[in-house]
Each structure stands twice: as C-alpha cells, then as structure tokens.
C-alpha cells in the first residue's frame, strides 16, 4: 500500500502562506513528518495555480526533495506547471505521479506528458458531463481512459485509476459504489490496474471528531477491496493499519473486547455500507 502524504495542499492556510512567501521551513517540516509517518510519496497540491504555477511547482518539488528521499505527486490542473515540475523532479527516489487526467479531452495531453517524462498518471474516472452515477459508469470511463493512455504511449502499469471518493455527508450511496469500482478496476487488466483514492474526501463536511474515524475504516474497506494507494494522512493510516485486525473481526461478525470500539466500528461500517442513513451524530445513536 502506497500512502501519498496529503498535507502539502494549498487548501491548508499554513501551507498556502508558505507557498506565497516561498518559505521552505513549513513545507520541509511537513514533508519530513509525512515521510517519517510512512508516506511513500508526497502530494504537492498547488491548486489551479494560474499565475506563476510553473515556478511554484518547481519550487515545491525541489523544496520537498531537498529533505525527503521520495517522489512527488504533482497535483494541479495547470498543464504547464506539471511539465515544469517533471523537469526538475529527481527520479532517484522514484518516478513522479501526475494528478490527474480524466475522460475530458482537454485533459488527454496529460497522458502525453506522462509518457514523455517517464512519469505515472492518475486517471480520475469522470467525464466532461459530470459525476459518475455508479461503479459501472466509473468502470466504463476507466476503459476510455485506458484506451487513451495506450494511444498516447503511456503504459497501463503507469496508470492509477481513481474512482473519485465523494462526501458521505451528501452522497452516502457513493461510498459503497467506490468500493465496488475499486474491485472492478482491477479486473480490467492483467496485471491488475493500480488504483488510488483521495481518501479524506469521504469525511469532508463532517464534524472534526468523526473525520479520522470515517477515514480509517473506509480506508480498511478499500484496502480489503484491493486498493493500491491513497492520498491520505499517513499518521491516520498507520493507526488504521494497527486497528485493521479489529475492523476485520467486526466485518466477520466477531465480538471484540473493547465494546466502545466495537460500536464505533460497527456504526461506521453501517453508514459506509449504506445500511444506516448517515447523520453527523450517527455515532451517538
């Protein structure tokens, strides 16, 4: 399981300010922490970065790789910024990952970049027309992206399919559909296609104290479905791995010693599986 450390995102105030000021301190501190917590790659999310995106991505890649022996996931919609990042990426630590292409023709050139710079690419299974309705639609879009990857010369081994995790608070039924999609994606090639999710989106919009709970147990369910990698909080995922035997026991219908934990796991699995309607206070019911 590859954890792509999610913490260097322009959405976080501290990171955004450091990016603006080109202050290496906070960026490197966060990168080092994520590496020590078990990340195998660091996500550098600079947003749409319409102005100065190329320079910013290069600064991020070099700043991160100065202190951490890991590859970087180049996370932006700015094509030129991605290419600029790829030019300075140090492949000694592994190959870069581009986040992302999709089934939108405007995003196809990203695949060409992947092939040209020997980078890997995330294929987000959405089209131009909006969000996929179910697992089957995600798989159909995945097939399109795979065909496109071959056309542009990107080996399928270098393509990570992303089923697009949606918020459980507003799109509860998609939690299970994404798990199904992860299973279906693997069937679409031999060797199985690699998969990735933006994990913490599952708990986006939920009260702060339940976010890690949803993130961790959803991660375990995705892992059981064969997930290859996740853009996530490495610290949380390390906890998830430690708690996995408990979660697996509950899934198998066994009783675990810690009754409180048992309730927490059971209720969370129920909302993920859609057998109980989600509400922010679901754990208190």
């Amino acid at each position, binding site marked *: 399981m590859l954890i792509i450390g999610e913490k260097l995102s322009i959405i976080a105030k501290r990171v955004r300010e450091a990016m603006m000021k080109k202050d290496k301190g906070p960026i490197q501190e966060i990168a080092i922490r994520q590496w020590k917590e078990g990340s195998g790659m660091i996500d550098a999310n600079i947003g749409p970065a319409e102005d100065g995106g190329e320079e910013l991505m290069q600064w991020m890649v070099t700043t991160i790789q100065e202190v951490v022996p890991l590859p970087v996931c180049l996370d932006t919609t700015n094509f030129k910024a991605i290419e600029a990042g790829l030019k300075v990426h140090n492949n000694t630590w592994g190959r870069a990952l581009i986040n992302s292409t999709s089934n939108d023709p405007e995003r196809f050139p990203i695949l060409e970049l992947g092939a040209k710079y020997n980078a890997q690419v995330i294929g987000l299974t959405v089209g131009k027309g909006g969000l996929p309705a179910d697992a089957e639609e995600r798989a159909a879009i995945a097939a399109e992206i795979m065909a496109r990857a071959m056309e542009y010369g990107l080996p399928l081994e270098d393509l990570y399919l992303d089923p697009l995790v949606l918020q459980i608070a507003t799109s509860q039924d998609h939690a299970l559909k994404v798990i199904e999609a992860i299973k279906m994606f693997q069937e679409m090639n031999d060797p199985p296609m690699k998969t990735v999710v933006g994990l913490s989106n599952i708990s986006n919009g939920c009260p702060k104290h339940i976010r890690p709970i949803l993130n961790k147990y959803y991660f375990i369910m995705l892992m059981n479905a064969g997930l290859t990698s996740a853009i996530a909080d490495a610290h949380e995922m390390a906890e998830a791995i430690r708690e996995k035997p408990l979660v697996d026991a509950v899934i198998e219908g066994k009783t675990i010693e810690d009754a409180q934990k048992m309730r927490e796991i059971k209720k969370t699995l129920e909302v993920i599986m859609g057998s109980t309607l989600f509400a922010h206070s679901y754990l208190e*019911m």
Partner: protein
Amino acid sequence: MAFALPTETYAGKVYEVTIGTDKTATFGGENVLPFHNFEGTIPHKPLIAYEIQDVPPEDWPETLRKVYEGKSADPVTWAKHCQDDLKAEAIALRLIGTHPDRENRSAEEAAKTVSDVLAAINVPLIILGSNNPDKDSQVLVAASEAAKGRNCIIGKAQESNHKTIVAAAMANNHKLVAMSELDINLSKQLNILITQMGFDKERIITDPMCSALGYGIEYSYSVMERIRLAALTQNDVIMQPPMMGDIGFYVWKVKEAQASESDLPQWGNLEQRAIGWEAATAAALLLSGAELLIMRHPEAVKTINSFIEELI
C-alpha cells in the same frame, strides 16, 4: 397454479400521531409504503389541514382569496368557516403576520390569536410560525404556552432555532414539526438533535421541505421517499415520524397558480390550473410518503380526499 401477488414485508413502522383534545385526528401508523395496503396495514388516512393565517390573506392570489371572501378578515371567523362549512378535520394557523418584513406582530399578539382561535374550534390546531428562525423562537414559545393542554402541533423547528421551540413544545405537551432543507442527512441530524434534548421521537413530524410542482418537487419527492424507505426497510427509528407537506404555501406563489389566462392563453383557465397545481403537488407528496398535508383551496382538498379514498 394460482397467481400469488408478490409482496414485500418491512422491518419498521411509522409512528402514529394523534393531535387535538376534543375532536382528535390521527395519522401515521402504517408499516408499508404509501397506499401499499396489500402488503400490510394502513390504520389511518393521511390528514389534510386547512391553512388559515393570523392576518387577512392579502398576499394570496385573487383566485384563492375570493374563495374565503368575507370569511377571512379575522382568524377566528376563518377558522370557524373551515371547521363548520368546509368540514376541516384540522386547521393550520400560520402566524405569517409576525414576520419582521410583514406586519411584525409581537409574540403576545400571536399568542392572543392562538387562544382566540382555539376557543372557537374543536378540531385540532397546527400552529406554524413565519419561518423566520429568530422571530419564530419567540412567537412559537408564546403560542405554545397559549395552546397548553390542547395537544397541538407546533412548528417549524429548524436547526438554528430548535432548542427554544423544542423546549416550548415539551413544556406544553405539543407535537413538533422539524424542518430541514431538502437534505435527508440533515433531516435525520435534526431529529437526532431534538431527541437528544429529551423530546420523544414519537412526537415529531418531519418536514423535509415541500416544493411545488415544476419548482423542485422531484427533490422533495426523492428525500421523502428515501426517508420512508429508511424508516421501513432499515427500521431507522429516527426516521419513523410521519412526514408533513406544506403544500399551499409553496404552490400558491408559483407562476402557474397566478398567471392570468389573458397573459398566457395557452395555459388555459387560471382557476382550474391553480387548483390542479395544488392537487397535483399534494398527490405527488402523498405518494412519496407524506401523512399530513397543509392545503388552501377547498376544491384541491376535495380532489385529494377522493384521490385518497380511491387508493386506500
């Protein structure tokens, strides 16, 4: 081999709610989807309440206003007309005149209106605020006290003001409307918050928010349908209160219920069209699971009553 009708059985059941003291009315109590009486029991028909308000209906369209002409100048006369002449089984008094952008009537004035109306009728009363969360939290508290002992429905409690309104309904032994805005998860959350205050879930009426035909009714329909499925198939006790459709309030402000035939001849007769619009909206929400409807036009109510008779 004889044909056997395939039927579903459900794990859950909708709570039965009785309102009023003298003449009472009961709705809910079914353990099946709307009108699926071939699969279980539907002990009560949906209840329709006639809507009146604390101020004359000058904001209502002419088509509707003329039906109540000479009867609606004061709420007491209006309520008696609904009960005695229109044979209303329940009355919904909307305290719209308390809205700060309207007459801005005080909580005391609203409480007086509630007392006066209650003194004049013996059918159950539903007391609705003006949907201004701040003002409602004063008005509905006073109205709740004025109606103490009459087993009314008080509403609508929303997430932002539910604490005071829940406390008032609890203290004065009323039922409560819990309204969220077209979001099934927030609807469940509000019901949880209300029960966490010690209010019995069996005394809640869920209002997932109504929309008129052509103005987002598919959202209301879908949320209500999913709430009912959660109640019945998942036995979700928080989602088992009956549901309300505030039909008239949403229907009579849309263009189709107001535009004249001279402006839009292709739309046909205004009166028929407007009545049809209210009836069609009500019918859709009944089919999605509503057990309590608040309606305005007597002809639309008549249509829906015969619709219910046919289906039940």
